[in-house]
Each structure stands twice: as C-alpha cells, then as structure tokens.
C-alpha cells in the first residue's frame, strides 16, 4: 500500500481518462469506428475498468448510469464516494485500495459481487440495502473479531465469502466458525465447503447458533407484527375511521379538556364518566364498523368499475389490433406487386387503393376510439351516480350516528350538572367529604358560575371533538370521491384518448411515408 504512494502523483478521474478508458475498452473493428465517429455516450457504457491508475478520489463517474460492472482495483482510493448514481451496478471491484470504512453503497441495491480485498477495513457496516449480494471478498483487511461476520447473516443470497488474511483468521477455527454461522455459504476463501466440514462446524457451534436463530426469529416475528399493525392503521385511515375502534375518540375528547379531567377526581363524577365512557365507546364502535363496511362497499364498487373499464378497453384494443393486422397483411402483399409492376397506370391504381385503404383504416381506428370514449364516458357517469348515491346514504348514516353521540354527550352533561350541583352544595355546606378535594378542584367549586363555566366549557370541548371527527369522516369521503373521479377523468378519458389519437396519427403517417419511400426507390425504374 505504500508503493507508488510517495513516488507518483495521484491521478484525477478526468474526462480524458474516462473517454480514453471507454474507447479502449469499447467495441473493436467496425463497431469501434462507428462508436468513435458517434462520440462517447457515457450513459450507454455497460462496463468500465479503471485499474492501476493511481486514482485517489472516485469522481465524475455519475454519468455512467447504466454501468453494471466497475473495476477500480489497484488504486489509492481512501473513501467510497460518488457511486450513488450507478444504481445498476452488479459488480464492483474496489480491491487493493486504501479504504478504511464501508460507506456510500446504499443505493447500489442490485450489487451482486463486491470486492473489498486488501484494504484497511475493520468493521462491516452500511450494507443493509445490498440484499442481492452473492459474493463478498473481504480478505487482507483489518477485521479482528470473528463475531463481526454475523453481520453477513442478513444476506440470504450470499454464497461466497473471502476472509483470509485478516487478523481474525489467526484463529484456526475461523472457517468452521464461518461455516456454522453463515449456513447459506457454499464457498469460503474460494474453496467449496465440504459436507464433513459442515457437520463438524455444526457440532461445534450448535448451541450458539441455535440461540442466534431463536433471537433472529423473535426479532422477525416482532417486525411482522409491527407490519400488520401498520397495515391495519393505513386501512383505518383509508376508511376514515381511525380513532373510532376503541376509546380513541373518547380519550382525545378528554385530552384537551382539563376541567373535565379535574372533575373526575370526585368519585361520583368518576363513576358517571365511566358509564358515559362505556356507552360512548360502544357508539364509536358502531360507527367504526359501519365505516369499515362502507369502505369495503366503496372498494368493491370501484374495483368493479375499474374492471369494467379494463374490459371495455381490452375489447376495443383487440378490435383495433385486428384492424391494424389486416391492413399490414394487405400492405405486405401489395408492396411487392408495386415494386414489380412496370405499368404506370397499374401502379397508380394500386397506390390509390393503398391510400384509400389507409384512410379507411384511419377512420375505422378513430371511429373505434370515439366509440370507446362514449362507452367510457357512460360508464364513468354511471359510476359517478352510483358512488354519489352511496356517499349520500353514507353521510346521512354517519350524521345520524354522530347525532347519537352528541345525544349521549348531552345526557352525560345533564347528569354531570346535577352531580356537580350536589357537590357544590356539599362544598357550600362544608361537609366533611369535601375535605378530601384538592386545591385545584376546590377552585372550580368556588361558586356556581365558575362551576357552570367549567362544565359548559368541557361540554363544548367534547362537542367540538365530535364535530371535528364527523366532519373529518364526511369531508374525507367527499374528497376521496372527488379525487378518484378526477383521476379517472384525467387518466382514462383525456390522457388515454390523447395517447391513442397520437398513436393512430403516427401510424398513419408512417404508413404514408413508407409508400413515399417505396416510390422514391421506384423512380429510377420508371424512367
């Protein structure tokens, strides 16, 4: 590693160097001459070799976006950088450099073969995203601890690993250790793992490995559970019923309500709130169920609608393809005749027939397209009608249900007022039970006004929360419908139609052009 370092200047990855490398490694012969004439286009290069060039810093390679193989071995690179854009890399060779840390490889998710042989790396890290790794070469580095190899367990496709020449390989059993801890491997240090070796390794490290597996299993289970939970949450959000399954809404009602919370310190009121909570949660659950049901119905409806659209489009497309095919077969038969005929009149009539056919197919394709547009429009309208009916019913139902919620709240409020009046009575009469009340609470019960204020503000808060939720459920659905319909209009009607019309026109143009080209060839024959 100290070689050359002191004697020669480090090289910079310059345009000239890259062009030279691409040209010298590119195709030979005729292809090479064409390539030279056309100039170098870095984004078309598939593989690049920049070895033995004394490069210090990886630079200027971001334009090689289609590169699959990059060799940077035998340089003096100190840091892995500038490779983020090369997302198509499958093979990366960084052996015989001065790298100390693994980094900057996160975006290279297609990487299968990574060589970091003969560097100064001491830690395996920052490679979590490289799940496609098949071969990793880590020999002649500074790995001290065999346990660091456990990092490689996450790569399920890893088949070959090279680790010899590291300090940790002073341990005679390092091969057995690796075999036992990385059971997917087939080769260690470029030698196949024999069956005996595998059994020996498994016997030796069975306990540790089993423990490891158990740990990993529980870890993965946890992740799965989290995933399921997340999926459920997104589903509830999509159905606009988040917080409604369980006591979510109720809790949020009391969250922004300090007075209500304070009042709960009185045992009687606590009882009251508990029973209210029970009823309210029950009501919420009903709304939740209804919301999920409605969401599924909407989903079904939209699925059906999209299916209908797809069907209509496929059918139409089939017809169009058939038309195009018949035209192309006609063209295939008529062109040779045109080329062969010597008779100018016949040629003219043939060309006329061709043009006629062309205009016919043009109008036919456009007609089919128009038909499809009508069909789609009708379907979309019908869908709109259906879904808006559905939404109206939904909104009514939701409103009714939330009215019940408010009813409950009102009832609860009345009871609360009664109860509080009783408490106030006690406070005024200084009954002994009141002694237990905290200072905060006592402040509420200073006089009737402040008590009423507290209660009404709590009530208002609650009603506000409920209103917000109701609003959210209704506007959410309306927004969703508007967005969906808008998208359908945009994509299925406008965009698709434009695309198709453009395609038809382009096709017709091309066919006309073909005839013109044919005539050009024809011209000298005529004379």
């Amino acid at each position, binding site marked *: 590693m100290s070689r050359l370092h002191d004697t020669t200047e480090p090289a910079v990855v310059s345009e000239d160097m890259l062009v030279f490398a691409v040209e010298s490694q590119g*195709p030979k*012969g*005729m*292809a090479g*001459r*064409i*390539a030279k*004439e*056309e100039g170098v*286009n870095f984004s*078309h290069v598939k593989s690049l070799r920049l070895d033995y060039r004394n490069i210090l810093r990886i630079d200027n390679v971001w334009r090689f976006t289609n590169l699959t193989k990059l060799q940077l071995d035998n340089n003096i690179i100190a840091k892995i950088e500038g490779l983020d854009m090369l997302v198509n890399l499958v093979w990366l060779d960084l052996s015989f450099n001065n790298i100390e840390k693994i980094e900057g490889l996160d975006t290279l998710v297609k990487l299968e073969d990574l060589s970091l042989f003969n560097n100064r790396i001491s830690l395996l890290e920052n490679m979590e995203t490289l799940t496609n790794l098949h071969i990793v070469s880590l020999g002649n580095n500074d790995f001290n601890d065999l346990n660091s190899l456990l990092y490689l367990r996450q790569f399920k496709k890893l088949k070959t690993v090279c680790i010899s020449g590291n300090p940790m390989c002073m341990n005679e059993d390092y091969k057995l250790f690796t075999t036992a801890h990385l059971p997917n491997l087939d080769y260690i240090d470029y030698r196949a793992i024999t069956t005996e070796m595998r059994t020996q390794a498994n016997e030796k490290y069975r306990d540790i490995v089993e423990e490891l597996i158990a740990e990993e299993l529980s870890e993965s289970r946890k992740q799965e559970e989290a995933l399921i939970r997340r999926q459920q949450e997104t589903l509830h959000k999509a159905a606009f019923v988040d917080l409604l399954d369980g006591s979510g809404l109720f809790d949020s009602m009391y969250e922004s309500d300090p007075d209500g919370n304070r009042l709960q310190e009185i045992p009687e009121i606590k009882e009251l709130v508990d029973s209210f909570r029970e009823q309210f949660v029950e009501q919420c659950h009903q709304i939740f169920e209804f919301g999920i049901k409605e969401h599924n119905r909407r989903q079904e409806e939209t699925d059906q609608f999209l299916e209908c659209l797809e069907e209509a*489009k496929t059918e139409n*497309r089939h017809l*169009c*393809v058939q038309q*195009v095919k018949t035209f192309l077969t006609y063209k295939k038969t008529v062109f040779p005749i045109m080329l062969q005929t010597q008779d100018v009149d016949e040629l003219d009539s043939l060309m006329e027939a061709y043009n006629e056919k062309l205009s016919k197919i043009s109008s036919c*394709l456009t007609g089919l397209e128009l038909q499809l547009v009508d069909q789609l429009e009708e379907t979309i309208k019908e869908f709109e009608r259906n879904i808006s009916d559905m939404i109206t019913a939904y909104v009514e139902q939701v409103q009714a249900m939330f009215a019940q919620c408010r009813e409950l709240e009102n009832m609860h409020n009345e009871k609360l007022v009664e109860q509080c009046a009783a408490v106030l009575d006690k406070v005024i009469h200084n009954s002994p039970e009141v002694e237990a009340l905290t200072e905060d609470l006592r402040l509420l019960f200073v006089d009737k006004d402040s008590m009423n204020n507290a209660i009404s503000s709590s009530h208002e808060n609650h009603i506000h929360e409920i209103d917000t939720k109701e609003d959210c459920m209704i506007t959410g659905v309306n927004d969703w419908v508007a967005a969906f319909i808008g998208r359908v209009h945009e994509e299925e009607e406008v965009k*698709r139609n434009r*695309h*198709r019309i*453009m*395609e*038809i026109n*382009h*096709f017709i143009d*091309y066919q006309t052009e*073909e005839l013109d*080209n044919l005539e050009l060839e024809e011209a000298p024959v005529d004379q």
Partner: protein
Amino acid sequence: MQDCSHGLKDVVYDLGDCTKWEFMFPSNEKPVLQMSQSGEQLADMADEEEFEEVEKFIDMPHSWSQPLQITRKEFQLRCPHGKKTVLYKRAKLEKYTPYLLSDGMVAKLYIYKDDEMHSLSITREFYENRIDHLERRQHNMDTGFVTEYFKKGKKNALREHYYKVRSQGPESERTMIFDSHMRVDGLVRREELATEMTEHYVESTDFLVYKHTKFGKRVKIFGPSSKSARPISCIEEKFKRNPERSVSTNLALREFDIASDTIRLTYHHEPDCVTAATQEFIKPPNLDEKRDGTVNLFEYLSSYQPDPHTPKPTNLQLYQQLDSLIKEEWKAQARVIEILNERRREEARTELDISIYDVERNEKARKQRLAQVQQEKEDKNREREMDTDYLAPFLTRFSSSEGALKRSQALRVKDECLQDLKQRLIDKANLIQSRFEQETNELQKKQQWYQQCQTSMSKEDEEEYLSYCSASMFRIHILEHRLNKHKELAPQRYMALEQKLRNDARLADLL
C-alpha cells in the same frame, strides 16, 4: 424288457419282476387291485398311508431318449431357417428371428380387405435392435402414407414420422413429432412440404413457438457436388412474450428474408397500444470487419415506434443489433441445413444395435477374441521355431559322410551360412527400397493429377485427396525409417552370426 413283437399278447404283468419291468417304486410289493371298502377302513388306510408315505418316495426313471442338444444359434433361430409364416383370416403374419434380416425386421403383418387376400389394406412391420430406434412402421395402402414409430431414447427424440411412400427423400412432404421435453429446443412438431418447413415448439428456453422456413428454387451448380442444398429464401420465427423483459425489447416476430437481404422485426404490443413496434433492416452491402470506414445504418433501417417520443437508438446500437441479427441468421440457416442433412444421413444407414454382451454378433468383441486366439497361436509357433536348428540345412549335405565333419567341410558350412544371411539381408533391403520407390511414384502421380484438376474438384474429393496424401507420406516415412534401420543393423547381424558360428559346438573344434 419284454418282447413286444406280438403286441401285448405275451406281456407278463408281474410288476415286481425287475427283469421284466423297470424298477420304479421303492417297494417290491405288487399292486393289488383293491375292492371297495367300508369308510372306516378307508380312513384307517389313509392314516397308515400318511404314516408310511414319509419314507416312500417316487424315484423318477431315467429318460429313454437322449438329452436334447440345441446349440445357442439354433435356439436363437426359434424356428427352422428363422422364418415362419402364419395365415389368419384376411391377414398374414411373417415372423423373423432377430438379426436375421439386415434391416432388423422381426415381424410383418399384412392385412387384407377381402377373404381371398388379394387386395392389401395395411402392412405393419415390427423392428428390433435398430440403431435408429425404429420400432414399428405402418404402411397404409389406401392413402399411401407411411407412419414410423420410434422408441424413446432416440438421439433427436423423434417419436413419429409420417410421409408419403412414393417420395421418401429428405425434401418431400412429411410430418415429424418429437418428444419436446427431451429436446433442449422444445421442438414438438415439424412439417415439411416441398418448398417449406414449419416447426412448432413448446416451452423452449428462448420463447420460440413457431418457425417457418421457405425454400427457393435450387440453383444448378455444375461440377461433382450434384446434391447441393436448396437455397433458403425466408425464415420466419414467432416468439412468445418473455415476461421478464420489457416490452420494447420483446420480439414477437423475426423474419429473415434471405432472398431480398432484409430482416424484419416485429415486437409485442405495449399494454395500451394498438400498433406494434417494427424494424426493417436492409442488409448493407459488404458489411464486414475488414472494410474501412463506417456505415450509417439509419439509411438501411425503417423503424416504427407506436410512441413517437421514444428516443432513437444510436448508430452503434443499431450496428451491434444488426451484427447479432446477421449472426443469428447464419445460425438459423445452418440449423435448417443440419436438420435436412441429419435426416438424409439417418435414412442412408440401417445398422443394428448389438449388445456388448452378445459375443456372437458383436463384431468388436468377436474380433478381439479371434485376435487373442491368433496371438496364442503365434506364441506357440515362435516357441517351436526356437527349437529349429539354424545349421540343419547346411549340415544335411554332409550328413551322408561319417559323423564328424572335416575342417574344410566345416569352413564351407560356415561360409555358406554367412553367404545365405548376406543374401537375405540384401534381398530385404532391395524389397524395402523398391516399395519405397513405388510409393513415392504413386504420390507424385497423384499430386500431378491434383494440380491438373484442382479447379474442377468437389470438396469431398479434395478431402479424400488430402487424406490420401497424409497416409502416403506416412507410409513413405516409415519405409525410409525401416530402410535406414536395416542398413544399420545388417552388419551387426552378420557379425553376430559369425560369432555364433564360431562358438557353435559342432564347428568350434574345427575352426
């Protein structure tokens, strides 16, 4: 034995008499005609018999006839001359021993339409041990079609083969059915007509499903190679959609229009497009590596993309694409020619497959055994020769005189003996020399002939000539080598004989 010349009149039925009757049962008791007995007695008898039968056993008498002597060959022949004909109603069956007929036929069934067996309807031939795995051939006289069925394990996985009986050559109408899963390319069916060939594929790795080859008119070539292949005018290949590749690189149809030097490509439809992308290359003239300069392939290409905004490929990409296409075209042509040749070769030879354990028929095994026997014989001969006296022919002349030889006689014997050896050595040298000259002359003549008619020579003849040359050179070389060696060894041999004569007990005293 009793005299039976007068029939059974004088036969004495005293079975216990060993001189009159052959000993057969272990006891000497005469069989007694038993009268009907009561059930009890019978039961008793049965009990007793059971008891006694343990010791009684039947000793089968020796056969009166000689043991059958059937040689292996006769046994395998199955019936006299290995042929048998059986007649049924409206049918005739001929059976043959395996290996009797050179084409391996073991049975032939004729099925007639009428009871008089005049008009033939179907013949079926059954084969065994064919090296081409032919199992059965059916010839339908009404339609004129022949169907051949092959066993599993044939090299090209052919299972069935239909063709018209009148036109059996490789260029006639035929249908072949293959075991698609036994073939790498997944071919299931090949139909040939006089000017075209259609192939169907199933589950081929390159997603090929259909291949259609058209042949043009044969161009007459004058010269020794009369059987030139039909020129291929067009190869058309259809591909299934490869789900792993993007649509734009997914070929649906590839046409090599060889007659007009055009390659047409049609791609699969993009999911929401009604037209498919097409490319049409006209092969630029002299597109080879040796030519200097470059070529602008846009002039030779007409391409249609359903989306007019697709980026245009570069000239280099086009060149590489065309280059690989042309290579594909060569490959496709070579394959078609190979298919036709394969069939021709196969039809030409009808060898039988012989098990290596069949020492009678397996030529190689038999030769090896014969060679072994020969070797043993030669070894014995050599041993015998060692015993012959090399001086005997010279000594016989003097043997008439008294026992011991005179000195002059001994000298003469010695001289004659040496002279004889010398003569033989010279003869041998001359023989080698003459053969050497003869071989060289022949080679020269052949070379002259080759130079004269080199231009009008077919490839096969040329190859033959070349192989002859190398063989001849080899022979010349060997002869030269032997001559040199002979010259080297001759004096040594002479000296050795002289030495031997000097030491010979019969002459030593006299010399």
